[in-house]
């Protein structure tokens, strides 16, 4: 027995000595952790962010978005606009001119034919391209000469930057992928696993759903970059252990998408090894206000159904004093700080970004003021006349039903808001529904967010990409949901405003970025100031980097690794 025990002790001691300081990082290798692993490196066949991000080290688009959502020329000298003649006056075509002297990592020159090929690769119906919607309205792409490409649209396209801008649609090499068009894309694993690119890194080794190893591109156009000579993109595991590897053990330099409880993440960051970074795109958690009457007594044809003559309006939620008081009673900073942590910040806009589109006009909702909310209701004559603690509007007690999907953060938000509303004399009945049912499209179910059989509901929505035109179009009159379109539409509040529709018409004709921004702000203000929605929390994506790395510029509009060529090891 004794000898056995001492043997075990010796082994343990030997191991400890053997292990001393085993976790060390290599100076010139940048280790990136994605808890979802990349399946291949072809963004046109990408299944999710992981493929786009892993490919972004190698493949580059013509222009990228910077962290503010502003387009920056990448493989071109300037962004084409109507002003510089790059975009046609009638908005039906755009001309990109490649910078001179850019080469692929194999040394051959990048030409306009590669750009044309990249577009054709995606638009070929047999390819099964996942980013096809980036090429919406593209009729044809043609090379005017070796460095000039023209994209023709089948209709005026005021925002002409869908294709080849951002990490969804980078340029792939024609010579490499020529044999992989259409159905052949399925068998081209050699190409899909190691695309040749113009970016700072070259694929050295690819292991499906596991790890990608890159080395610096010797032909990279910027002298001396990238600063790291190797990059490792490791996948698998979960968000919490990824955060731990950067913030506590220091095994990795960068970890992506750390959606974990703010308390846990803060404790990890306190270890002092790394820094948590957040980038905000357009996702906003909001309350939707029902502008129609959801009374169960009304029956299928009338319940939460919009009538053109406005006859089926909500009994009290369209009264400004009511929803203004409801908004004023909410302490958004408590919800954001306690429940979302680094991943959320209070907001009063439904379109909070990019910065040029963010309205500065609604910030008064950021501070909670229960007294002012009560005063507002008193002034409007909405008082508690029968002494039950609930106010009445024209005899109807202010009792609201409030639904959302089942999720711990959302139920905590509901509980907080119910408490605040009770302080202003509004009684709230809470409901939560399984996400698959709530967001599901089952017409037979009464519990979907589009049927909206309650007074208030809550979820997150946001714009896809930097341009808000499609997103703002969600609240068009023709988008109002109801039995007439089998509840297929995006105007969930059932709100109707002719002026808003007119603004949408206007933005569809406007190409100048600043004018588009001012229109978008006007529309945002209309939505917020008419009680269509009550914005709560601006939700961002959370990542972390190790403190020995400098140059990381978190980006919500493009790849998070968009400027990896600039990253350096500082200690």
């Amino acid at each position, binding site marked *: *027995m004794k000898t056995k025990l001492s043997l075990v002790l010796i082994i343990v001691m030997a*191991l*400890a000595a*053997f*292990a*001393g*300081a*085993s*976790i060390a990082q290599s100076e010139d290798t940048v280790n990136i*952790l994605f808890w979802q*692993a990349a*399946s*291949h490196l*072809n963004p046109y*066949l990408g*299944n*999710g962010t992981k493929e786009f991000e892993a490919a972004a080290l190698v493949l580059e688009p013509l222009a990228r978005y910077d962290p503010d959502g502003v387009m920056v020329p990448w493989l071109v000298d300037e962004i084409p606009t109507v002003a510089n003649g790059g975009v046609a006056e009638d908005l039906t075509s755009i001309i990109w001119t490649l910078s001179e002297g850019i080469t692929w990592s194999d040394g051959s020159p990048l030409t306009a034919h590669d750009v044309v090929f990249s577009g054709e690769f995606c638009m070929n*119906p*047999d*390819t*099964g*391209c*996942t*980013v*096809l*919607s980036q090429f919406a309205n593209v009729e044809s792409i043609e090379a005017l000469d070796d460095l000039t490409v023209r994209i023709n649209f089948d209709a005026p396209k005021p925002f002409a930057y869908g294709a080849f801008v951002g990490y969804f649609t980078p340029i792939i090499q024609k010579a490499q992928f020529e044999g992989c068009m*259409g*159905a052949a*894309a*399925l*068998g*081209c*694993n050699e190409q*899909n*696993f190691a695309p040749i690119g113009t970016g700072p890194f070259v694929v050295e*080794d690819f*292991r*499906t*759903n*596991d*790890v990608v*190893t890159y080395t610096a591109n010797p032909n990279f156009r910027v002298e001396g970059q990238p600063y790291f000579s190797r990059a*490792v993109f*490791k*996948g*698998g*595991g*979960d968000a919490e*252990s990824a955060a*731990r*590897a950067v913030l*506590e*053990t220091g*095994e*990795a330099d960068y970890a992506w998408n750390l959606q974990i409880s703010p308390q846990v993440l803060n404790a990890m960051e306190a270890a002092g090894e790394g820094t948590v970074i957040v980038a905000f795109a357009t996702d906003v958690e909001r309350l939707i206000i029902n502008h129609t009457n959801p009374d169960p007594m009304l029956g299928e044809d009338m319940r939460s159904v919009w009538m053109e003559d406005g006859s089926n309006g909500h009994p009290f939620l369209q009264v400004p004093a009511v929803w203004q008081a409801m908004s004023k009673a909410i302490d958004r900073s408590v919800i954001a700080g306690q429940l979302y942590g680094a991943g959320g910040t209070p907001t009063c806009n439904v379109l909070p970004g990019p910065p040029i589109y963010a309205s500065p006009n609604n910030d008064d909702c950021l501070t909670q003021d229960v007294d002012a909310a009560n005063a507002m209701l008193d002034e409007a004559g909405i008082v508690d006349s029968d002494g039950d603690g609930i106010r009445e509007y024209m005899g109807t007690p202010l009792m609201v039903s409030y639904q959302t999907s089942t999720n711990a953060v959302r139920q905590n938000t509901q509980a907080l808001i119910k408490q605040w509303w009770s302080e202003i004399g509004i009684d709230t009945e809470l409901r939560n529904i399984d996400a698959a049912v709530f967001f599901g499209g089952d017409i037979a179910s009464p519990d979907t967010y589009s049927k909206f059989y309650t007074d208030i509901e809550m979820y997150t929505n946001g714009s*896809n990409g930097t341009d808000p035109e499609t997103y703002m179009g969600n609240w068009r009159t023709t988008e109002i949901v109801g039995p007439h379109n089998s509840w297929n539409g995006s105007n969930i509040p059932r709100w109707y405003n002719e002026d808003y529709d007119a603004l949408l018409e206007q933005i569809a004709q406007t190409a100048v970025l600043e004018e588009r921004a001012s229109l978008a702000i006007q529309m945002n203000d209309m939505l917020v100031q008419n009680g269509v929605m009550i914005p709560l929390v601006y939700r961002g994506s959370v990542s972390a980097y190790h403190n020995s790395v400098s140059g990381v510029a978190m980006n919500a509009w493009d790849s998070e690794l968009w400027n990896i060529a600039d990253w350096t090891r500082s200690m």
Partner: protein
Amino acid sequence: MGKYIVRRLLTAIPTILVISFIIFAILELSPSDPTGNLPLTIPPEVRAKIREALGADDPFVVKYVKWLNQFFIAEPLNFAETVFGITLPGSEERTRVISWATRGPVIDIIAERLPQTLWVVGSSYILGVMIAVPVGVFSAYRQYSIFDQVGTFLMMVGFSVPTFFTGLMFIIIFSVNLKWFPSVYDTTLVVTDIETLKRQLLQMIMPVTVLTLYTTAQMSRYTRASTLENLQQDYIRTARSKGLTERTVVTRHAVRNSLIPVVTLIALGIPGIFAGALITEQIFRVNGIGQYLIIAIQGGDLPTVQTVTFIFAVLVVLFNIVADVLYGILDPRVSYT
């Protein structure tokens, strides 16, 4: 015996075919969709095109026959070509089993991942058996001794505490606090010298220990129970009364007989090594077969799930035969004719 093995192998063929059909039918009936996990911003018509490009909407029979052809004809021929360095006729038209998610041949990915699974799960299995058998025998021999009590307690703990908990605890103690072992497994590491061997061992310690704890707990319980039963048999008393040493009585008489059910259990557990350890691989980012299967299931990657589960089924059938044969060798009372 030889005849018996041949007969068993021949009857295994229809079994395997039926299994392949059942797996395929179950997967086909399940509501998984290869485009289901794509971002919500991808419109339905784009999804339809992707499904069409993958052949996901083909009729059931077409897909099944295609898979049979790819798996039983194309893949072996392709394997022969690479092994012998020859080109057989029709090499160009042969389509291999292609994964929908990675768009690469499934077999290549399995081959790429097998080493780390075998290293980690395989070595923990061997280690587990090596510890479990002596511990189990000794516990039984000294029933209710302190060793037995402590051993039984530890084994109950090992058996009932899930690997995701022990794994996490190990990471927090040994990676975060002590900084002894890495928590991220480097699959690209190639052992070429002492330095790389040391790194390989270091990164294997935690996942292997977690898995060994579990295997040991299971196996030693069986060994203990089986040895206990045998130690009370009449032939043990006979052996002792013949004046044999305790050592001979235990090792030659009791243990050999007790190991018969244990060996069967060990043989039946071997296919499990190839299936990987789903959770442990995930925690330590070993990214072996287990993690691959999970990703494929989540992504609705039918060809991959079908191929991996089928290979697993074949191994189960084969090792059942192996266990039966071993049983006959170990136990002379069982004879196959």
